[in-house]
């Protein structure tokens, strides 16, 4: 399975990765090789098999919805690359 450069760019867009031209070329080669290797799964008959998403039990546990202390704003913002008042700041979204 050989990926095209356009496919690599499409996936990089979905993954929010601004790859350099060299990285795009490298990804194309390496991802194509990995996809070839994983293609052996197509030989396994799974027509009557249910998927496993988790090795844990099937039951999702419940807990009571108790009010618990949460971080004060200054702690929650402690790692913010940019902030304004008690908010995270991001580049302008609406012109």
């Amino acid at each position: 399975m050989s990926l095209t450069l356009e496919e690599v760019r499409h996936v990089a867009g979905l993954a929010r990765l601004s790859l350099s031209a060299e990285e795009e070329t490298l990804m194309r080669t390496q991802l194509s090789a990995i996809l070839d290797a994983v293609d052996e799964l197509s030989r396994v008959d799974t027509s009557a098999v249910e998927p496993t998403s988790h090795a844990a039990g099937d039951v999702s546990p419940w807990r009571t919805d108790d009010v618990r202390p949460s971080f004060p704003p200054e702690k929650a913002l402690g790692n913010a690359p940019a902030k304004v008042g008690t908010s995270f700041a991001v580049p302008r979204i609406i012109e």
Partner: protein
Amino acid sequence: MEPTELSMLELGKKLASGELSSVEAVRACLARVDRLDGEVKAFLRVDREGALAQAEASDRRRKDGKRAGLLDGVPVGLKDLFLTEGLPTTAGSKILESFIAPYDGTVVKLLRAAGTPILGKLNMDEFAMGSSTENSAFFPTRNPWNLATSPGGSSGGSAAAVASRMAFGALGTDTGGSIRQPAALTGIVGLKPTYGRVSRFGVVAFASSLDQVGPMTRDVPDCAALLQTIAVHDPCDSTSAPAKAPDYFAELEAGVKGMKLGLPREYFELPGMDPEVRAAVEGATRALQKLGAELVPVSLPHTRFALATYYLIAPAEASSNLARYDGVRYGLRSGEGKNLLAMYGHTRDEGFGLEVKRRVMLGTYALSAGYYDAYYLKAQKVRTLIKKDFEDAFRTVDAVLSPTSPTPAFRIGEKVSDPLAMYLNDVFTLPCNLAGLPGMSVPCGFTRANLPIGLQILGRPWDEARVLRIGRAFEREHDFHRRTPPLGAA
């Protein structure tokens, strides 16, 4: 004898009797770090003041007759993906280089409650993606047995620190072998518990259906003690098992007489297995037979598909988990990019290393429209078959034995440019993660070049006690786990 030569439990006893203090134990570790870590490079950050303050508090507790337990005062290290309040937690990534966790993760809280001083944070492959610790954004860690070789990964810093006696024990995480493979390559004991046995709350996520926290120690009793400390139900992790963990010491010394131990023929038929590894592991299985276990050939027919299954499921989950690194709430933010979308793209391109990008790309592709059924869903179905292989085998045997890694430690740089060759390191360890089973590596021999070899013991879900008991039965009759790397002899 140097205090650092003691096991965790031996040190715990000497602390209890007053023969040594926790401050002395921490100082001994720090002295070794000063002497050796310039070469080994296991630590990303050493917390001298914090560790000494915790040791002083531990010594005071004992003086006041309030000892917290067997491990109170025994210094440990943490793989750098456990959130520790006030200390950096980088996950080996540039994108988290400046991240200071605002809270302690659950296992860190449990360690603090048990009174173990935390020496610092240990190197790892970025976001635990790798098998050599070469994917750390900061520097590779070296194997104390031969500094030209890798300690394995992704918990390579934890393994190297324990093997070189800079820490008495450490915690790692294992998504496809990241505790067991480095344990094997550095001659220590490493256990991946059953999925759900240990809380993942406050642990930087890689692949959430596979990740599990576990102990890395010098011998099996220490492993049991550390597991006992962290195997506690946590309401903050919905996959954390509500059932109370059993007493891992109750039958630890009970031996293997009458046990049926399975030898999966698919594992031993793997082309590319190092002959010295094969010989050592076969020797270990015969030793267990001599101790009264019955060796039973078993078949795990879908073993050959585990690697492909893993390398679709783990990257798919990783691509989803790593979407949170967007430069908004924490971590690196790129100065490039005029709008939000461009800022995301540049932040992630600058902050992630190549292997992480590769897996995010692969996972995004496998989950994308038009490919989901062919890749991700297909892999989840094959995962069912792999799990069923083990269920079938465990109807006739009590545990399964295999090599931990197909080769001993490899040279740094040898495999890093070939992702597929690197992925083969995990061929024996990752089926266990896919099936959610407990698995442990114990030292079982050395190559002629004096590199350690590990025996892997896989158990039924929640059967850690038996896995430990088998490892202990082997360990009691051998001295592999007592050998010290040549580096440590200086």
